[in-house]
């Protein structure tokens, strides 16, 4: 029993220590230097990831570039370099998008940098308005020349009227531009951005407005000499005069002219000098056009209607901005992240709005823009590598009267697919099982070929009938009398100790004597690994039967199948030893 005590204690301690150390395996403190991120007043650079990030060197030049972009665009508008305008505007949009992403990814969305971003977005919108309006104004100039050549005073009057609406619109855009540029310069100053270029763009814009005013004044002067008998009148009323996203504003009016009004006379509604929609008058000349406030920037818009060459007065519409609410949900399927959510304002779904999703991992940054559907919902799915990701969705589009908003950040962990582990486990299990099966099969084959059987037989006959005996060596020696005396000592020991030992232990003494006798008889060494039956196989037919009887009894004693007093075993031993001694 004592011999098992030490291994048992070792095993017990091993298990105990393993259990004690288990909680530390995830963060082993023995190698703590890489796990302690902070201690006292210092942070541990060994535990932190080295990124050598110098983003100021990226952001500040980009901000400078954005500020500088306005000047060249306005200048090209003045010079009417259409191709350059489009190229500059496209580049400005690209740089703005890059800047927006940078601000979000660097989590600077509550800083002065974000103020700059918002002002820049506003500035981009103003420039797009300017480019669009300038193109329309240029078109009007060409039309006026054409109508003057055609000597068509009514058309010239229409051009002058539309030009006046456009001038008001441009003046408003200029006012917005001045404000935005000042704010842009101010927010840029904190990071040492030079604002001279933005001031230059305002100056250029101002000069352009002067040119527009001058052209328009001259145009009005030219039509002042034209005496047209206006027999038509087109009225316009807007009710309510403004609203928020999702509101519907009704525009109504009456087109009156001498004579009958043809049913279905088309009425075109213009907002900010752009065709909004076309409706028609009824036979009494009344028309009604609803305006849904959706993709209309917050601020004042100018609306008028037109029937043929007849214009209504220009009426302002006030669109008020409201706060947006953006939600974000996510689900994970394998390595696919599915992000969804809804954009609302004042509990109204915002449809067709761009929502940008930012998926930021340890070393990767991914973003994509999707539009909301009619229910204000968006969905984006993407494949990612295993790791931890922060997901954020952002809405920012000044074209909508909904203020910028962002969802709360969600952290999602994508784990390595367990498939490989399962495959490895399966391979190991299958290999192990295959090995065991093959081993068993080989053993069975060996057993079929081998006379040796380790199973226990109840009788000698059973044993003899089940095993073919091997050939015995011809060169065997008889046991000498002296050797017989030596072997008989086992008998003496057995008799003297059988009362104090257990039957099995006592039987071992006779078994040792039996082995010694076989070695002498067969002149073959008996290996300790050989069973008693294997040793018996070394005997020839003469003593085999007696030996088998002894072995059968021996096994019943040793393996405790049948507890006897030992006399029968001793008798069998005597017979087989005598047999070997006679020979």
């Amino acid at each position: 029993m004592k011999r098992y005590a030490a291994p048992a204690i070792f095993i017990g301690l091993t298990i105990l220590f393993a259990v004690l150390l288990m909680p530390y395996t995830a963060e082993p403190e023995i190698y703590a230097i890489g796990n302690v991120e902070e201690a006292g007043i210092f942070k541990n650079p060994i535990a932190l990831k080295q990124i050598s990030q110098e983003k100021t060197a990226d952001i500040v030049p980009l901000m400078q570039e954005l500020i500088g972009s306005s000047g060249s665009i306005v200048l090209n508008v003045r010079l009417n370099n259409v191709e350059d305008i489009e190229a500059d505007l496209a580049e400005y949009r690209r740089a703005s998008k890059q800047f927006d992403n940078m601000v979000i990814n660097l989590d600077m969305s509550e800083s002065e940098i974000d103020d700059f971003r918002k002002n820049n977005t506003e500035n981009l919108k103003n420039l797009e308005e300017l480019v669009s309006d300038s193109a329309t104004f240029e078109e009007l100039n060409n039309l006026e020349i054409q109508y003057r050549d055609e000597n068509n005073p009514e058309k010239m009057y229409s051009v002058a009227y539309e030009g006046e609406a456009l001038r008001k619109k441009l003046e408003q855009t200029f006012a917005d531009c001045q404000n935005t540029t000042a704010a842009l310069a101010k927010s840029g100053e904190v990071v040492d951005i030079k604002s001279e270029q933005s001031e230059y763009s305002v100056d250029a814009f101002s000069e352009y407005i002067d040119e527009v005013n001058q052209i328009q004044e001259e145009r009005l002067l030219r039509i002042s000499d034209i005496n047209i008998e206006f027999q038509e009148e087109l009225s316009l009323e807007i009710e309510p005069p403004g609203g928020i996203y999702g509101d519907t504003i009704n525009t109504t009016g009456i087109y009156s002219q001498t004579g009958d009004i043809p049913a279905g006379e088309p009425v075109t509604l213009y907002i900010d000098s752009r065709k909004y929609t076309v409706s028609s008058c009824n036979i009494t000349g009344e028309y009604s056009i609803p305006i849904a406030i959706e993709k209309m920037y917050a601020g004042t818009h100018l609306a008028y209607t037109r029937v043929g060459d007849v214009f209504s007065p220009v009426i302002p519409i006030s669109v008020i901005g409201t706060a947006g609410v953006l939600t974000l949900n996510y689900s994970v399927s394998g390595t696919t992240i599915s992000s969804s959510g809804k954009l609302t304002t004042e509990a109204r779904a915002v449809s067709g709005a761009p929502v940008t999703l930012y998926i930021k991992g340890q070393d990767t940054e991914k973003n994509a823009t999707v539009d909301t559907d009619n229910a204000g919902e968006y969905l984006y799915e993407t494949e990612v590598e295993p790791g931890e990701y922060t997901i954020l969705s952002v809405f920012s589009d000044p074209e909508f009267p909904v203020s910028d908003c962002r969802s709360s950040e969600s952290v999602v962990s994508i784990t390595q697919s367990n498939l490989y582990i399962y495959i490895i486990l399966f391979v190991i299990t299958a290999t192990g099982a295959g090995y065991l099966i093959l081993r068993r099969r080989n053993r069975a084959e060996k057993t079929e070929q081998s006379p040796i059987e380790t199973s226990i037989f109840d009788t000698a006959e059973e044993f003899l009938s089940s095993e073919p005996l091997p050939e015995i060596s011809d060169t065997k020696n008889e046991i000498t009398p002296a050797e017989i005396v030596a072997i008989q000592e086992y008998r003496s020991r057995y008799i003297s100790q059988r009362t104090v030992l257990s039957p099995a232990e006592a039987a071992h003494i006779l078994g040792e004597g039996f082995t010694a006798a076989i070695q002498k008889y067969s002149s073959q060494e008996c290996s300790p690994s050989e069973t008693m039956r294997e040793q018996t196989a070394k005997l020839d037919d003469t003593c085999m039967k007696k030996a088998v009887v002894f072995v059968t009894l021996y096994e019943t004693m040793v393996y405790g199948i049948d507890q006897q007093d030992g006399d029968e075993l001793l008798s069998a031993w005597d017979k087989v030893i005598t047999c070997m001694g006679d020979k």
Partner: protein
Amino acid sequence: MRQTTGNILVVAALVIAGIVILSYLSSTDAELSRYNNGWNGTSSFYDQLERSGSTAITSYPVLRSAYPDTLIMVEPHYMLNGEEGESLREFVTNGGTLIVIAQRESANTILEVAGSTVRIHDTKLASIDMEYNDPEMVIAYQVQEHSLLEDVESIALNQPSTLTSGEALIQTSSISWIDANNNGKVDGIEKLGKETVMAHEIIEQGEIIVLADSGILINSMDFTVSERDNAQLRTNLVTSLKPSYDTVTSQPFVTEGILQAVTGAKSTTVIKILAILLITGIICAAYARKIL
């Protein structure tokens, strides 16, 4: 034979345990300590200083008799008495260069005594330009030439404080801020702008240089910051100005009683592991000697 082997094992286990325990107790894990070989100690910097032949200043009056060119103080932590203060001031006014490397405001008393107007402000300085994935591991840039900053363009800092007054030598980038709410991002009333982390001031014939980050001297900031010029700055500190180093009031030379070290050791996992090893050793020995 087995008994002899068991005895050898017992002795070996005890010797190893003893060496480990002694070695543990003879060092310290106190941050900035000159005797701390760990990541937050300054053993490597002071070894470098000693190898270069720098001398240790153990009392300030010696500055009057044989004053060095430069004296380096790291996180000075107590008020100097009148004579000590006078010695230090005299050292500076007579042409010495005092380099104070500290991020705690307690060092301001030394600066005041030495006649400097530069002040340390113990703030949470953060920047978008960071050497490690933490906004407080700020990268700062040279903004004015100085012999101490030869071949030093940028350095990585470890939670630096900020400085006011004096002439700026090293500043952060413009997208840096005082992280008042300590959330790692700029928000609320936090403003962006360059912050000075190293400044100097001429006091009569002498000069006072202040670096608001003692973290650049810790061992782990020596070998891990490969992208910056931290190593060059250390070399310049050690070689270019023939410095002596203060051991009187500088925090790296603060030693505490062994009792405190033992108390601290008891709370560490290393000791727990040693105890486990010791128990295992004893059991091995018992097994070898057939006690079990």
